[in-house]
Structure formats: C-alpha cells, structure tokens
C-alpha cells in the first residue's frame, strides 16, 4: 500500500504544474484523482502535496481541508476550518485564522472543560480582516468570534488531537518545501555568480553555510518521515516533534540562504524574501517552534516516554 518512486515523480510533476499555473487547487486535485492517491499512501501524498505548495509559495485552504478530514461530518469544499490564532498554538480560542478558501460554512472549534467542541457558522456572518503581518501573500484572514455561534456544538473528543497532528505534519511538509526551494535558489545563485574570479559557491564560508542548511533540512525531512510511521498512540507527539523540527529548520536554513545571496538577498527583485516571510508565517500556525520546544521540553521533564518516536 505505497506509491512507487516513478508514480511519486509523476504525481509531483502534476502538482508542480497545478501550483505553477495558479489554478484553484481543489478542482485540479479532483481532476488528478487525488482521493485515490491519498488513500493509497497518505504519508507520501500529503508530504508531496504540501511540499509542492510550499515550494510554489501558493496559498490555499488545503490545510483546513486536510484537518477537516479527521473531523467526521464535515465535507471539505463546502466547509472550511477556523484555525486557532497563532498566539494560541493549537488551542482554540476566541480568535482564529481563516485560510484562503471559497467554502461558505466555517467549522469553528471551541475549547470547553470537556474537550474541544465544534460549531458551524456561515462565513458571511463573520467579520474578517486581512492578517497582514509580514506575509500579506498568505491570503489569511483574522477572525474574532462574537457570541453569535450556532448552538449545534458537537464534542469531537480525540478527533481534534488527530486533526492537529495531521495539520502539523502537513505544515512541516510545507515548510520543508519552502526551505527546499530557497536552498535551490541559493545554490543556483552561488553557482552562477562570480566574485574574485570564482563562483561564490567555491568559497568555503559559502559552501559551509549551504551545507549546514542542507543538513538541517534533511534532518527535518527524516523527522517528518518518522512522524508518519509512528504508532497511533504516539502519533500526536511525533507530529509535534516533526513540526518543531521543521519550524526550527526554516530559521536555520533561511538565515543562511539570505546571507549567501549577499545584497541580492534583501531586494524584492529576488524571491528570497518571500521564502523568509512564508517560512516564518507557516511556523507560527498550530504552534511555533519555540512554543513547541517549550511544550515538548516540559513533557519530557514531566516524564513523557521518548522512545517510541526516536526509534527508527
């Protein structure tokens, strides 16, 4: 039950084309028969899909759709999910982020003493404003909820935790996609650009910075693979670690790619600033790496069993 390498390459190629053309992603995925691919191998399918979205710096509601799939009773397409505000990590609260989506019904998670419950609300009745920040290209909207939620709150129990884990794995893949593209750009630039009569990439300080970026990125990739293969009882923990690692990696990788681009790295002529902004923005969703490091560290100190995740 897994995709062979050749199929993965075909799928990747098709997705890259979809994102490159800027077409709406959901119908394009239907055309590709995505549901079947996803069922065949959710790990690779999700990783490739979000990796390509990150590489293309595209914006969509795919993250919400992927999380909704874990929450029974809501159909992606007609529904989208309100994500917790970055300030809240993965804990639903009175404010949230709406991704770029055309869905008319918003599924709103709320934290109660008995766990997370879900309610639905018409999108048109929500007051939204652009998230702004430094990645206006994300297309995110900020929502502050009033009291006027519909009363059909449904308790979802452990499903919320599964949805967050799914979301974190998807985000880790997307961050890795962003970093991969940034690193490729940096490698191309330093291979082509000559200073002192040599390609920049032939200078040790440049090579070593790129090598460090590469090593960090590969470590993040492996951590994500491990998270996908983690047993069910530790899946949430493993997904948290994968998201943490990817978030920390974007900081490591993008600082170095900006530096080796020299003056070019800070102009808008180069795409590098977009990778920087998107990387930081994605890191903030469902718990930034510093916050997650704090959570994981606290859990470890409180005696959490680390073995299931690290066994490879």
């Amino acid at each position, binding site marked *: 039950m897994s995709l062979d390498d050749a199929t993965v390459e075909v799928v990747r190629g098709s997705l890259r084309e979809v994102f490159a053309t800027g077409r709406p992603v959901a119908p394009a995925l239907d055309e590709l028969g995505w549901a079947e691919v996803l069922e065949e191998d959710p790990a690779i399918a999700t990783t490739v899909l979000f990796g390509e979205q990150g590489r293309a710096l595209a914006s969509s509601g795919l993250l919400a759709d992927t999380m909704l799939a874990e929450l029974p009773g809501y159909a992606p397409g007609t529904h989208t999910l309100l994500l917790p*505000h*970055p*300030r809240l990590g993965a804990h639903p609260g009175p404010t949230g*982020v709406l991704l770029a989506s055309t869905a008319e019904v918003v599924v709103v998670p709320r934290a109660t003493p008995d766990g997370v419950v879900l309610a639905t609300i018409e999108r048109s009745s929500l007051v939204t404003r652009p*998230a*702004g*920040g*430094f*990645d206006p290209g994300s297309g*995110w909207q*900020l929502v502050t909820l009033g009291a006027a939620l519909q009363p059909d709150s449904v308790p979802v129990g452990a499903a919320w935790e599964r949805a967050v884990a799914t979301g974190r794995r998807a985000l880790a893949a997307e961050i890795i996609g962003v970093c991969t593209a940034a690193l490729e750009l940096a490698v191309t630039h330093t291979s082509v650009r*000559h*200073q*002192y*009569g*040599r390609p920049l990439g032939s*200078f040790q*300080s*440049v090579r070593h910075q790129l090598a460090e970026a590469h090593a960090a990125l590969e470590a993040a990739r492996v951590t994500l693979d491990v998270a996908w293969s983690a047993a069910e009882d530790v899946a949430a923990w493993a997904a948290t670690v994968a998201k943490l690692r990817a978030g920390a990696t974007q900081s490591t990788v993008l600082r170095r790619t*900006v*530096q080796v681009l*020299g*003056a070019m*790295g*800070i*102009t*808008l*002529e180069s795409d*590098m*600033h977009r990778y*920087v*902004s998107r990387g*930081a*923005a994605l890191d*903030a969703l469902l718990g*930034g790496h*510093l*916050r997650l490091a*704090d959570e994981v560290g606290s859990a470890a100190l409180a005696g959490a069993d680390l073995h299931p995740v690290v066994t490879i």
Partner: protein
Amino acid sequence: MTASAPATPATPASPTASSSSIEAFVEEASAFLDEHATRRPTGTGRVVWGEGEDRISYFGDEPPEVDRAKVDAARAWQRTRHEHGFGWITGPTEYGGRALSPLHDLVYDQLEAGYDVPDTGVISLIGLGMIGPTILAHAREEIKQRYLPAMFRGDAIACQLFSEPGAGSDLANVATRAVRDGEEWVLNGQKVWTSVAHHAELGMAVCRSDPSQPKHRGITAFLVDMSLPGVEVRPLRQMTGGAEFNEVFLTDVRVPDDHRLGEVDDGWRVTMTTLMSERASVGGEGAGPVERAVSRSYLTAMLEAMGLSRDAAARRRLAEVLADLTATGYLNQQSLRTLLDGRAPGPEASASKLMFSHNLAAASHLAAEMVGPRMIAETGDWGTFSWNELLLGTPALRILGGTEEIMKNIIGERVLGLPKEPGTDTKAPFRAPTGEQS
C-alpha cells in the same frame, strides 16, 4: 614590593599639549549648541513601552515627502554647524575647515549627542566621511575648492557609485566603462546599492578605463555631477519594503577630465582611501533608532510587555544578548579612550564592527522570538510590527561595508597574519579588449 613590580605610584597622566585647547573648544561648542539646539532631557534613554517612535529599522523607509523633509532638515543643520565653525572640524582652513585634531571632532560628536538635532547621516556617512577625504587626497586644486566647501556646507550630498551587479564585495571587478574623448570621459554602465543617490548632487564613480590590464589596475575614479545628462537614478526595493538604495544607470555621461580623482588607471588606490573610511565608520556609527531599539532598556521593556519576565528561556536569551551588547560598548569606549590618549587604535575596531552586526542580528532575532506569533499575524501592537522591518533588514547591515565574510578575511589576513587564498584573477587582464571597442 620588589624591583621589577610597578615601582612608584604613578603620577596622573601629564596634560597633553592640546588638552587646554580642548577645554576651550568644549566651551565654545557647548555655547554654540546651547544657542542653536535643545538639550535632550536626561533619561531619554529609558524606554516606556507604547510611547514614542515605533519605527526602528536601520534604513528609513518613510514616504518620499517625509524623507525629503528629513534631508532638508539635515542640510539646514549642517549649514548651521558650518557657519559656526563645526561643519568640518578636521578640514584644512582653505576649504572651510577648522584644522583641528580628530580628537576635537570626537569631542564635538560626544557633546552634540546630548542635544536634539537633526540626523545628518545622509550627508555625513558617505559624503563627508568617505568621499570628502578622497577628494581632499586625490582631486585637483580647483575641484577641491569648488566642491569641498559646498559639501561641508550641506549644499552638496555625495554618494558612492561603486557596486555593480557583477562587482559586490569584489569591487575591483567593476565593468562600467570610462572612455577618453579629448578633454572628457564618456561613462557607460550600471551601478547598484547606491544609498542616498536620490538625494545626491555628486557621485564618486569607479570605472574601468583599461580592460586589457589586470583588474586592480585599469580602474579610474571620477567625481560625477549627478545632474549631468545620462545619469538616471532608480529606487531598488528591499525586503523591508523600503527603498533606501538605488540603481544608477550611466548612459553616455560626459565627465570633464578635471573631475578625475587620482591618475588614469590608478583608481583602485583612490578607492581604497574611500573604503578604508567606510570600514571604520559603519561599525561605530550610532544608528539612531536602531541604537535605541537594540538597547537594554528597550529589550527589557519588551520582555515585560510580552509577559515573559518569568520565562526562563527568554530571560537567558535576553541576558546573552545584553552581555554581548554591554561588552561591545566597553570595547568601543576603550577605543575612544585610546584615541583620547593620543594613541593609534588597534585591531579592535574590526572586532567592533563584527560585533555590531552580530549584536544587531541577535537582538532582532530575540525580539522576533519574544514578539512571536504577533509579528506574523497581526499589526497595530506598538513595538511589534516594526521589529518585522528590523528582522528583515538585518541582513543588509551584515552586508554593508563589506560582508561579514570579507571582514573575517581582513581580520584573518591583516590582523592575524594568516595566508591569503591563492588568487586566480589578480594578474590576468580584466577582459581582453573586444573588437567593438576603440
């Protein structure tokens, strides 16, 4: 106490020859400043969260009219300084200077820092600090008389036309052509990273005059009147959204030969005069809003405002940043003391520059961590969004005045005496002349 230990209690350092005139100078400068400027209230260093200027990026990215007004204010203050004898403290009197020592200059800067006066960086950092000394050293007499007084009066702002798309840190790689035509030179090429070009009346252009020579030879430098036909300045947008830098296109710009700096094909030496001033000035220069933001007071206020006063991890990172920041301040004070004692500063100046960019990067990343998600998804909170600009703008600092990598090469080779990398391109002709060129 034995023979070889310090034998006697030292007498206080004997007064140097100039110290009495320094005292008089301090008196004169203080009187001037009292009359023309307002003393800063004491304790302005203290930051109260939510109050005051919330813009901290190193590079201004205000709307053009605000930018223009600041430049006008800078020119006006420079003129006032000049009229009262503080415009060019170290300059020769025949060009409007006071012919005093660098120490007087430092003393004046220290005094002026206690007053609320317009920031004149747009005039002084590059024009007066770097191009002025170059003109003084390498221009003809009539050119010195024509431009130096105007520059130090604030009438002429000067910019560097140095970097090019193919010549960044490796400046000797410039390709902008200078071709002699009688008593004129014809300049063609593209310059990038020229800060303040959009305000400048003058530019110093480094051009390729003889491509058949090795790259460090065959370069000639010129003073270019920025209003000449064929000079076009275009803003270059940065990651921060601002446009402090420009591209400058030179198309058949005709420069009189008397505007040449130094000898024909000897421009590299001229350029080194300019660059040595740059590497000295970038690290030490008080960066205004940045200095305020990358300060103990600001960062501590931020720790409290973000509710992190008891967060062990945030406290630790803050302490690390503040320790380096304070120690770098000590280093700079010691360099100043060395100068005041009349001794030559040592290699610590290059360490100071690296620490400056290190501290700035560390402080802005710390701030980004403290502000956290607010920086990404929200605007409007005082002190949060502006850190965005600094976070994205920091790389520029690390590239200014030579990238950190180049600075480390300089330390490694000139300070520590490590061998150079074997050069591959210092002997070969820059580029074989092609048929199309005369």
